[in-house]
């Protein structure tokens, strides 16, 4: 009798409204705890994502965005959803050890046009020895633009010389490339020819920037780890095409990375961000980067167009004791503007 009375009293105190409230609170509690568990997992990636994305560059000095179909190119159609509009990214790759007294050169500059609607990508390699006016003043090799003013100067220099608008940039350090490839478990590459170099910089470890090492990447299909892939894309001394050969190899390795990265899922983000933390930055927002990832895996290899500006687009010369490539703008600009809208 006593217990029945207690139960009735308890039911009185815990009416249906209270029970519902308690249930909702418990559900919210579980939702929060689940979110906390996920946050704890992704927290390092989130911190890194905020650190490496959203780097601002001075857009005022740059060319305005291209609006409608320049030279017949389908570009920023106002009726097109923002996420479907084509855009241009300047990919920058460089050593990041500042081994020569703070001067950081870009080893690689690839102008990339991405069309999310058609899932087509064009990659145009810019030779590092291209002798052009720099946005920071003076005329020099284009690889020095980055050392003069980091991504802002590199982007502006490319925009000014190629008469294109660059929407975003993404920079990766050499060590970041090595770590990324190793995190992916290596990549498969069909090495185009024997890449032999007796004067390859031994600068990934140690403090002597003038040390050399020997490199021999054997030809044909093979599975490459990060260090070997870096040797393949970085060496140029033994290649008749010098920088052009290297540019082709860089594009090849980027595509191999893309192929392997298709295997990754959201749960891999902490590992990848850990690998890239100090070796990657971009002016894209986290949302931009997140929207690019599925696009990267959706683009078929046959829809990736690779462009390298070989002679006669450029010609070799020696200026001030340095070997440079002189651009033939009359040929270069029409070719570039086939793929990248002119400003």
């Amino acid at each position, binding site marked *: 009798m006593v217990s029945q009375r207690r139960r009735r009293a308890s039911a009185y105190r815990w009416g249906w409204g209270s029970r519902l409230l308690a249930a909702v609170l418990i559900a919210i509690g579980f939702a929060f705890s689940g979110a906390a*568990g996920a946050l704890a997992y992704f927290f390092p990636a989130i911190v890194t994502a905020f650190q490496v994305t959203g780097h601002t560059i001075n857009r005022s000095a740059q060319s305005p965005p291209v609006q409608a179909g320049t030279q017949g190119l389908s570009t920023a159609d106002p009726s097109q959803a923002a996420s479907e509009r084509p855009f241009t990214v300047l990919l920058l790759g460089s050593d990041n050890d500042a081994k020569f007294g703070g001067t950081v050169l870009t080893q690689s500059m690839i102008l990339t046009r991405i069309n999310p609607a058609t899932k087509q990508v064009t990659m145009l390699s810019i030779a590092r020895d291209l002798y052009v006016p720099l946005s920071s003043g003076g005329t020099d090799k284009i690889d020095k633009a980055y050392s003069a003013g980091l991504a802002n100067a590199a982007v502006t220099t490319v925009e000014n010389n190629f008469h294109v608008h660059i929407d975003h940039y993404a920079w990766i350090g050499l060590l970041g490339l090595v770590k990324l490839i190793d995190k992916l478990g290596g990549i498969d590459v069909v090495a185009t020819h024997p890449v032999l170099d007796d004067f390859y910089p031994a600068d990934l470890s140690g403090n002597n920037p003038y040390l050399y090492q*020997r490199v021999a990447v054997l030809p044909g299909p093979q599975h490459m780890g990060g260090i070997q892939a870096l040797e393949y894309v970085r060496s140029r001394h033994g290649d008749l095409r010098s920088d052009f050969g290297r540019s082709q190899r860089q594009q090849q390795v980027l595509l191999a990375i893309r192929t392997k990265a298709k295997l990754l899922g959201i749960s891999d983000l902490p590992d990848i961000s850990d690998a890239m933390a100090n070796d990657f930055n971009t002016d894209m927002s986290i949302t931009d980067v997140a929207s690019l990832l599925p696009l990267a895996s959706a683009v078929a290899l046959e829809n990736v167009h690779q462009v390298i500006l070989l002679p006669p687009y450029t010609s070799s010369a020696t200026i001030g004791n340095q070997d440079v490539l002189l651009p033939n703008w009359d040929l270069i600009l029409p070719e570039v503007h086939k793929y990248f809208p002119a400003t």
Partner: protein
Amino acid sequence: MRRPLALIVLLALMAAFAFGVNRFFAARKTTIASAAAPTEVHPEVALPGTLYLAQRGDIYRLRSGTFTDLHLPAGIGTWMQPAVVPGTPDIVAVARTAAYSDVYLIDGSNGKILRQLSHNKTATVTIQLWHWMFWPHVAADGNTMVVSYDAPKSGQSYEIDFAVWQGSVSQKPATQQWTQPYSFTGGDVQPLPLPGGRLLYAKYQITGGNVFSQLAMQTNALGDIVYLTSAAADCAQPAVSPDGGTLAMICASGTGLQSTSLVVAPLQGTKLGTAHVVVAKCICGAPAWSADGSGLGYLAPADATGHFQLWWIAGASTPRPAAPKQVTTGLDFDATSPPAWAP
């Protein structure tokens, strides 16, 4: 008393849920399986004869369905590119270090090193004067040997290309230069000694900014070159069937930069018959005929890890070869080391 207890239980459940969510994401990380040692697996196809294959710096023997580790000393270098010495149980193989590589004669039955055939780390500390030596092959006489060797060179130039040299197992592997490579191309690689003193190899060239290889044949040292394949076909990695009547090769033409084709063609003297693509658009490499000529082995990735496995095509020289069969799973063979096949 019951309410605090219920609250404690609820909090514990929420904490467990948070932990569970965290581990859920962790468990969904992409696992790129690391390769097993060949001795831990059994081939899925029974192959004739004895094979020698290189994986991660060691050489393994496959006979009667069982892999045996030759346990070559890791301190000497990364072991690769085994080749049989006809008429003996011995093999020759390359030990590669960071800056040079040497050829060794090894007892294939027990892995005992019989002799170091080359000494490519010279007394000088100038690493540019050290040498690479790769792809040793021994002729049917069991003594005549050919290798790709980056000599001659001065150490003062960026130019470094492989030339094919001939030597002998009993003396030195490279005593006479047989080919003259094109400068700054990587040179002449993958030499095979043929009956009658002929030499077959892959010759790399660069024309109009494009790099490609052609299978080339010579009948005497530094003599005239007969090309068996076109520049457009871009073929390398020749493997001649034991009866000398069929040539297998890896061609990259038309496959893009990220794939190859395994091709076979009848060979009569210096004439190549109509070529047949046996495996199209793959990342295939390192073809090797079985010693009895009943089929063709090659290396190619089988899954997303990108690690190269051994594959087998029975009757590859016949008009109707069997479909490729995957022989191994979960291994990581060195795709720059064609299998060596002994009877």
